[in-house]
């Protein structure tokens, strides 16, 4: 089965890449965007019996750096 992992910067952590993207959007004439935060999307193909606890451990140990990032796991 597919598992989708969304890794996002924690609130309060400055995101220079998001700021640059925001700036570029404004440069393209898109108004009304108040903030941009860039993150990472990771798709895993896993056996059906891989537990939620294992998926959580994968995120905490490698896929996200919990000093700066949060993660969210979705089974597709």
């Amino acid at each position, binding site marked *: 089965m597919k598992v989708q992992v969304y890794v996002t910067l924690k609130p309060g952590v400055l995101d*220079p890449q998001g700021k*640059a993207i925001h700036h570029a959007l404004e440069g393209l004439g898109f108004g009304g965007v108040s903030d941009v935060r860039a993150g990472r999307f990771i798709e895993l193909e896993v056996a059906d019996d891989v537990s939620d606890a294992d998926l959580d451990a994968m995120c905490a140990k490698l896929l996200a750096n919990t*000093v700066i990032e949060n993660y969210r796991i979705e089974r597709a």
Partner: protein
Amino acid sequence: MKTAVIVFPGSNCDRDMAVALEKVTGRAPAMVWHRETELPDGIDFIALPGGFSYGDYLRSGAMAARSPILRSVADAAGRGVPVLGVCNGFQVLAEAQLLPGALMRNAGLNFVCRTVALKVENSQSLFTATYDAGETLNIPVAHHDGNYFADAATLDRVEGEGRVAFRYTDAVNGSARDIAGVLNDAGNVLGMMPHPERAIDRAHGGTDGLRLFEAALGVLA
């Protein structure tokens, strides 16, 4: 005095680090490949060099921090063996949670490659005892992900415990409180973005980095 340089695929300052260690100890370091599971016996000092280990995949230092040799490095650090991580080596040590915080993309988004001024904040550590407190050093940086981040409570604790080894004297990469180098709680692990191994010979344009190696290696000599 036996030293080791850990070499990852994508390391590119491993040779410079080896030259610095040999210059100070008179003996070539062991070059230890990331797939090794054990360090050579009797290693007194471990260096993690700069570069782009594993192509900076996932996050800078993330893959290297989970490589087989890092378990031995962590064990050695736990026993009190001095460990120096420079640039990518600092990123690896932070990812391995041997040092607090994380290194993020530079605030200006640009790769920064120039000599910067550093203030010695802690001149008592085993890496910095050859410097005077408050002394200004000129050491090169060359990095894209040197923006040091930790939450306010961690920063307060690290500062309160005197674990900031070096601070930039002006804004270089957006680092929290201009932190350029940080020590672990036991004081035997130092991570720093500037490259002391690139300032050990007058032909480099400066020798301010040499005393760091003399301090770290002389204590043990």
